[in-house]
């Protein structure tokens, strides 16, 4: 790692008596999963480059409770939610951005009714805003001529009807974007949702991530783009199962953008 990342915490801002423009919700995967940490860092590089006044909660952040809720543990979810809301409200957080569509959905849709109302953006939406307002520019070119297919995360797409932001960002890389047959609202899940990430699948003919990888391989891509740390893991495993890891890389859109700008 060449230059140091600037990652201030909300506590730092508080100490200076200032408010950041946006809170970056890193999420558990983004904090602890080795692959997802790279996505987190790529996004931070973009934030740094665009001079965005952001902060993280750091050690004050805790699991949103999303995965517990989908597993049926409403108690645990609400305990996590109420704890997080207390912290977020104490810091008077107004706007949140996250790289995880599950945190995005949970914070955006399920926290308000428990007392936590914030403007919540997925990182693809936030980067798109940065580009549109001229705060961040993508020259592109690194991926020119590459074929990229985008796997829609269920909790960004179907769950919240956001199909355009990730695609708009992919366009800026000047790559050739190829769609899978099942995409946008008919996109197939990667197999990780609903707490499946943390358990073995039920008995069946094949794993969901392999089926989804087959969908992607049919587009003959160089890169499978994702917008969710869990999808990224599942698709990476799928590509390995198909022994294609030498030819196809699985990258988050934040990484594609950061790489495009050689950040």
């Amino acid at each position, binding site marked *: 790692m060449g230059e140091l990342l600037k990652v201030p915490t909300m506590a730092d801002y508080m100490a200076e008596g200032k408010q950041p423009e946006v809170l970056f919700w890193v999420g558990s995967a983004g904090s602890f999963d080795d692959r997802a940490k790279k996505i987190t860092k790529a996004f931070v590089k973009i934030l740094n480059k665009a001079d965005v006044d952001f902060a993280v909660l750091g050690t004050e952040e805790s699991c949103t409770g999303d*995965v*517990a809720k989908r597993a049926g*543990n409403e108690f645990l979810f*609400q305990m996590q939610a109420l704890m997080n809301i207390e912290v977020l409200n104490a810091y008077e957080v107004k706007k949140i951005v996250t790289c995880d569509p599950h945190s995005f959905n949970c914070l955006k849709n399920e926290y308000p009714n*428990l007392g936590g109302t914030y403007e919540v953006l997925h990182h693809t939406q936030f980067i798109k805003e940065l580009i549109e307002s001229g705060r961040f520019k993508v020259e592109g070119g690194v991926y020119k001529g590459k074929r990229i297919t985008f796997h829609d995360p269920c909790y960004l797409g179907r769950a919240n*009807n956001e199909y355009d932001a990730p695609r708009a960002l992919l366009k800026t890389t000047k790559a050739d974007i190829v769609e899978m047959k099942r995409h946008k609202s008919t996109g197939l899940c990667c*197999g990780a949702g609903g707490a499946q990430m943390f358990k073995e699948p039920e008995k069946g003919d094949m794993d969901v991530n392999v089926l989804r990888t087959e969908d992607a391989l049919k587009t003959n891509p160089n890169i499978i783009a994702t917008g969710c740390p869990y999808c990224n893991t599942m698709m990476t495993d799928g590509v390995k199962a198909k022994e294609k890891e030498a030819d196809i890389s699985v990258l988050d859109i934040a990484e594609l953008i950061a790489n495009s700008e050689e950040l």
Partner: protein
Amino acid sequence: MHYLPNIIFAVLLILGIGYFTKNVKKLIRNIKLGQDVDVSDNKSQRFKNMMRIAFGQSKMVRRPVAGLLHAVVYVGFLVINIEVLEIIIDGVFGTHRIFSGIGKPYGVLIGIFEVLAILVFVAVIVFWVRRNIIKLRRFWNKEMTSWPKNDANYILYFEMVLMTLFLVMNATDVSFQNMNNGNIVSQFIAPWFSGLPESTLHVIERAAWWIHIVGIFIFLNYLYYSKHLHIILAFPNTYYGSLKPKGQFDNLASVTKEVKLMMDPNADPFAAPPEGTEAEMPAKFGASDVQDLNWVQLLSAYTCTECGRCTSACPANLTGKKLSPRKIMMDTRDRLEEVGKNIDTNNGEFKDDGKQLLGDYITHEELWACTTCNACVEECPVSINPLSIILDMRRYLVMEQSAAPAELNNMMTNIENNGAPWPYNQMDRLNWKDE
């Protein structure tokens, strides 16, 4: 004896509508066995959804072939029913084609009916072929055996027969053919009967007329026992369908109460209820039987027409797991029917039959295979949400029975202990920045 046909007709009409009404009342009673849920908000948005999704068939065309064919049958059903009005008036008053007096417009109407009838006939044949010859996968899943499979075909046969009778009735109606006003299709059928004496034609015409209208009465009463109920319930179901983003799952208010109490440092967990109030029964978390679901979910179970679009989009089902969102809805309906019959035979009281939806109909394995991806919800042409039922039953398994798979229990313990689904210390959450 001159009035005998009128009397027979009136009796059949009363029987047909009466028995149907009785079943509708039962249907409403069964749906009301569900928990209350507030769906009184956003009336105008709800009405718009109903007009767009049910009346306008907007989601049917996600699958263009089936969508187009269905639109034909649907429009045919709506429009040809105007003819049923004439038949009923004729039947009761002993008139013949009472509306024909209006002249030219009558021909236009009947002409439209005849064209639609032949289109419906063709569409229904194609439906039958898709089901029985091409054998589209979604019509042959495990849950589509015995009654569900036969039910689907009976409906198609019914429609074929009704359309045929309608056209034969017109073709053999000598005075109607002589009017030459609106017999667009039947004029080509009429020659098949040429050479028959007029009296025989009259008998055929009367027979077709009677069988047609009696067939409609039977079909009306068949609805309650069939997936075909969707022709009525699609409307309320799309009206009451969720208006929230699909990713938003409801927060259980009963849990919020408990969690807030738990987190309140001033709360006394052993406090007696205030003077004069009954101690509240603790709420049951999640659903193990149909009565635990809300009434919109139960309405949805009756609305499901078993088209299987949900199941054909379900990642778990596509990869050979036992979960089928359609089966979740069918099981819910079948169990609700069972509970309803139980109430009927026990003088209005439900007597415990030692069965429930969870376990006896829907297995744990099915519930745990769901990825909560909302593909089933997205696909449903009539706004059914099978995922909400799956989640409610998971809630029961986890919060009432602690019956989650072991790996999920580990994950949840991790969240409880260190605020992440993996066993990492919360104090290490920011370590990535310096790695």
